[in-house]
C-alpha cells in the first residue's frame, strides 16, 4: 500500500516537473505542534508570505484563521495581500499561463496538500518537513535548485534567504559490488538569516500550519470524540445491565 501511494505521489508530483524522480531520502519526523496556537500563527504568517504568492489554498478562508486565535482585524492588517475581504478564500494572483512558462506547470493548490502527501514513511507533515529542509544548489537545473526529498523539483528554494545555501555531502560505499553515493549530511555554504535550529523550528511551524489547514476541524474533532466515547461507554454499561435484567428469566 505504502509503495503504491509513494509511487503515485511521485508520479503525480513529477508529472508536471520535466524529469522523472530517481530516489529520495527517508522522511524526518515533523514536530507535532498542532495544538500550539503560537506556532500555528507563525506558520500562517510564513505561509501567507512565502507560499501564497504562487500557490493558492483555494478552499481555505482567511477568517477561518480565527480558529487559531487570530482576530479578524489581525488577519486584515497582517495577512491579506491578494484580497480585502476576510471571508475570501486564499486565492493566488499569479496567471496560470505565466506559471506554466516559469515552472513547467501550475503550482498545486496547498489546502489539503498535507493530507495528500501522507504515505511512505510518515505523515504528509513529515514529508513537507523533510522536503522544505533538503534544498541544495544545483546549477544544472533551470531554477538553480534541487531537492533530496523531491529530486528534480520544479519549485525553487523559496525559503533560501532564511536557510542559506547548503550542499549535501556523500560517502562512497560499496553496495552489491557497485560504488554508490550515500547521503551523509549537510555543509552550510552561505549563512541564512536563521540558524539551522531556528530554520528547523520555522519550517516545523509552517508545516504544522499546513497540517492544520488541511483539516481545520481536526482539533475539535478529537475533543468531541473523547466526549462521544465517554457517553457511549456509559450507555453501553446501561445497555449491558438492561440486557442482563431481561435475559435472567431465559433458562
Amino acid at each position, binding site marked *: *500500500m505504502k*509503495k*503504491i*501511494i509513494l*509511487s*503515485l*505521489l*511521485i*508520479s*503525480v508530483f513529477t*508529472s*508536471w516537473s520535466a524529469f522523472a524522480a530517481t530516489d529520495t531520502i527517508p522522511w524526518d519526523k515533523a514536530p507535532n505542534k498542532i495544538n500550539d496556537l503560537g506556532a500555528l500563527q507563525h506558520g500562517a504568517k510564513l505561509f501567507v508570505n512565502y507560499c501564497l504568492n504562487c500557490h493558492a489554498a*483555494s*478552499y*481555505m*478562508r482567511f477568517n*477561518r484563521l480565527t480558529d487559531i486565535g487570530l482576530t479578524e482585524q489581525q488577519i486584515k492588517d497582517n495577512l491579506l495581500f491578494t484580497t480585502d475581504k476576510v471571508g475570501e478564500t486564499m486565492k493566488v494572483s499569479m496567471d496560470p499561463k505565466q506559471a506554466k512558462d516559469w515552472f513547467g506547470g501550475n503550482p*498545486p*493548490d496547498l*489546502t*489539503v*496538500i498535507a*493530507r*495528500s*502527501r*501522507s*504515505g511512505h514513511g510518515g505523515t*504528509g507533515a513529515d514529508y513537507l518537513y523533510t522536503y522544505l529542509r533538503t534544498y541544495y544548489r544545483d546549477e544544472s537545473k533551470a531554477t538553480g535548485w534541487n531537492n533530496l526529498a523531491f529530486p528534480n523539483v520544479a519549485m525553487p528554494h523559496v525559503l533560501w534567504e532564511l536557510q542559506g545555501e547548503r550542499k549535501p555531502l556523500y560517502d562512497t560505499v560499496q553496495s552489491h559490488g557497485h560504488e554508490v553515493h550515500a547521503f551523509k549530511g549537510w555543509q552550510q555554504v552561505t549563512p541564512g538569516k536563521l540558524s539551522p535550529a531556528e530554520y528547523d523550528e520555522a519550517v516545523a511551524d509552517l508545516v504544522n500550519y499546513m497540517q492544520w489547514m*488541511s*483539516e*481545520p*476541524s481536526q482539533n475539535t*474533532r*478529537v475533543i*468531541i*470524540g*473523547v466526549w*462521544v*466515547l465517554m457517553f*457511549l*461507554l456509559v*450507555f*453501553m454499561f446501561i*445497555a*449491558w445491565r*438492561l*440486557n*442482563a435484567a*431481561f*435475559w*435472567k428469566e*431465559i*433458562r
Partner: protein
Amino acid sequence: MADFKEISPNAPLAEKALNWVDNRFPLSKLYKEHLSEYYAPKNFNFLYFFGVLSMLVLVIQILTGIFLTMHYKPDAALAFASVEYIMRDVPWGWLIRYMHSTGASAFFVVVYMHMFRGLIYGSYRKPRELVWLFGCAIFLALMGEAFMGYLLPWGQMSYWGAQVIVNLFSAIPFIGPDLALLIRGDYVVGDATLNRFFAFHVIAVPLVLLGLVVAHIIALHEVGSNNPDGIEIKAHKDANGKPLDGIPFHPYYTVHDIMGVMGFLLVFTAIIFFAPEFGGYFLEYNNFIPADPLKTPLHIAPVWYFTPYYSMLRAITNEMMYALIVCVIAAAYLGATRAAISSILKAAIIGGALLLMGLMLAIDAKFWGVVVMGGSVIILFFLPWLDHCEVKSIRFKPTWHTYLYAVFVINFFVLGYLGIKPPSQINERISQVGTLFYFGFFLLMPWWSRLGETKPVPDRVNFVAH
C-alpha cells in the same frame, strides 16, 4: 381480511386510536409478526449482531447521504471543491462526511461478518435459500453503490479507479467497447460519468437496496432464523404452538441488539473522531488530489473491500489460462466418466467443455479475468445448492471441514492483501493459487461437503443461561 372490530366507547383513547388504525392497516399484526411474536432461537452468539448492524449502517448512510446531497455538486469542475466546502464551511459537514466515508467501509465489515456467519452456520440451507439469494443480491447492489459513490469526491483515486473498472467492460467481446461507452457516457470518465454515477448512487441503487432489504427480512421472518447449532427450533413446540427454544424478538433481542449497537458505535465513532482516514484505507491519501485525466497514477488499487476480487482479476494472465483449461479438461473427464448420467448428457458435457476451451483460447485473458471477478461474487448465489453436507452448522461438520473454512477465510484475506500491493511475480503466483482455491472451495463443495463423519446433532439448542 380481518373482521371490523368494535371496542367499548369507554376504552382509553390510545386503545381506541389503535383499534381505528388496526381496522384499516395491520399495525398490531405487523408488530406481532415481526417483533413481539417473532420467535428467534435463544442461542444466538455475537455473530448475530451483524444483521441488525448492517441495517443500522444502511440507515446511517441514507441519513448522512441526504445531508451530503444538499451541499455536494455533481459537476466535474465543482465536485472536489464542494467536498472540501462540506469539510470546512458546512456546519458539522466534516462529521457528516466522515460518518458517510467511514460508514462505507463499516458497511462492508458488517456485511462480510454477516455473510461469514451465514456461511459457517449453514443459514443458506433449506428452507432459507431465498433469504440467502436476496442477501447476495443486496451484496451485489452494495458493491455497485460503493463503486459509484467512490467516484463522487472526484479525487485522483476516484477518477482512475472508475476509469480502470469501467474499462474492464470493454474487454467483453463484440459489445464491450459500446457498453463501456454507455456506462461512461463519454470516451473517458468525465462529467457525464460523474452525473450518472451520482444519479445511480443517490437514488437508483438505494431504492433497489431498500427493496431487497425488505424482501430479505420478509423471507427471513417467514422461515424463521437459523442459529449456531443449525437446528430447526420449530421442530419442538409447546402447547400454544410456540417454539420451545425460541424467544420473542422483542424485548429479548431488541435489548440484546442495543448492546451490540453500542459496541459497534464505540469502534465506529472512535474511527470517525480519531482516525477518519484509517491509515489511508478508508480515505485514500491521493484522493485528496483533484482528479486529473492527464496524470495517470503508476499504481491504481481499489478500496480495501474490493481487493480480493481485484486480486482474482489480476490473477488471470495468459499463463493462468492454461491452468484453467487443464481444470476444464479435468472437470469434463470426471463428468463424462464418473457421473451417473445418460450418455447424451455426457456428450453435452464434452461438447460444452470443448466449446469453452475454444473460447478460452480465442478470447483475451483480460476478458476471462472479468469473468472470474464477476464469477467470484455470482458463485455465492449458488451456495444453497452446492453444500451437500448432512448437517447445517460447522459445529457438527467433520473437524477437517472447520480447517477448510479457516483456510478459505485466510485465503480471502491473502487475496485482499495482494489486491492492494503492486503486481509482482511472486504475488501473481500466490493470487493464482488463491483464485484456484477460492473457486475450488465452491465448485468442489458438492463433493467434499459429503465427505467425513459428521458429529451427532442434538435435539435442542445449546444454551447457557446468562
